């Protein structure tokens, strides 16, 4: 079986995804968890570009457009997520996930 560049790209993205996953699971600092989630999102974007570049031909630019939307949504997610982190910090004076385990502030 031959390995194409696509394989390499996919391995790259799955490794990145797992690093993000481990980070998000292992750390209890909310900011780091958010950053881990961002990395996982980025890994998904990598796949879109890889398939757009090497995959079977589709409608022009589908992968690229998907990534552009994903980046826009990720930016919104980061903004809201970090605003939440700041809000949580103001209530609990901590950004450890364990400390923010109540629904009421």
């Amino acid at each position, binding site marked *: 079986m031959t*390995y*194409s*560049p*696509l*394989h*390499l790209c*996919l*391995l*790259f993205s*799955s*490794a*990145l*995804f*797992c*690093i*993000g996953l*481990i*980070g998000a*699971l*292992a*750390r*209890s*600092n909310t*900011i*780091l968890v958010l*950053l*881990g989630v*961002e*990395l996982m999102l*980025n890994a998904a974007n990598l796949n879109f*570009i*890889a398939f*757009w*570049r*090497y*995959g079977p*031909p589709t409608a*022009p*630019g589908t*992968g*690229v*457009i998907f*990534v*552009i939307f994903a*980046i*826009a949504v*990720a*930016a*919104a*997610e980061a*903004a*809201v997520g*970090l*605003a939440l982190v*700041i*809000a949580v*910090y*103001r209530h609990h*004076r901590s*950004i450890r996930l364990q400390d923010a385990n109540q629904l009421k502030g």
Partner: protein
Amino acid sequence: MIPLLLIAGLTLATAAVALALRNLIHSALLLIASWAGIAAFYLWAGAEFVAFAQVLVYVGAVSMVVLFAVLLTRRSRDDISVAIDSPARGIAALLTGGAVLGVLFGAVISSPLGAPAAGARPSLSVKELGLQLMGPHAAALLIVGVLLTVALLGAVVIAAGDRTDAAERKPEGNP
């Protein structure tokens, strides 16, 4: 292939180190390097627009928000380091992550993806991209616009609304 290996290596290394460090600022900066690496991958793959958008959004904007969040949530003046979390948690995370990695790697390696069609390097000029966005994807574009606006307003409300709340509550807690 060599550039790809280089980019992948640097990206993965910075990402891994970033998530393992104690110093939050170093983490954030290394992660920014990692995002830049991903942008380099896009550039290498020929998706110029996406690469620059990635830099603009992640290195330019998200990083700033992250750094702001780190600075605003410091527990004491100079200390931004985070205690290493419980080893059990780390081991569990490593096991889960390792398992997912194994599954993914196995799936990727065992799947016959086939060689890319020779000379069929897709390219997408900015103009075509714009036409695509405004044509078939116009609805999605509008929705993203609304989403971004809502997110912006929401972030402002969450971050700012709490502040006055906190200021009002403060005197009660003190004699």
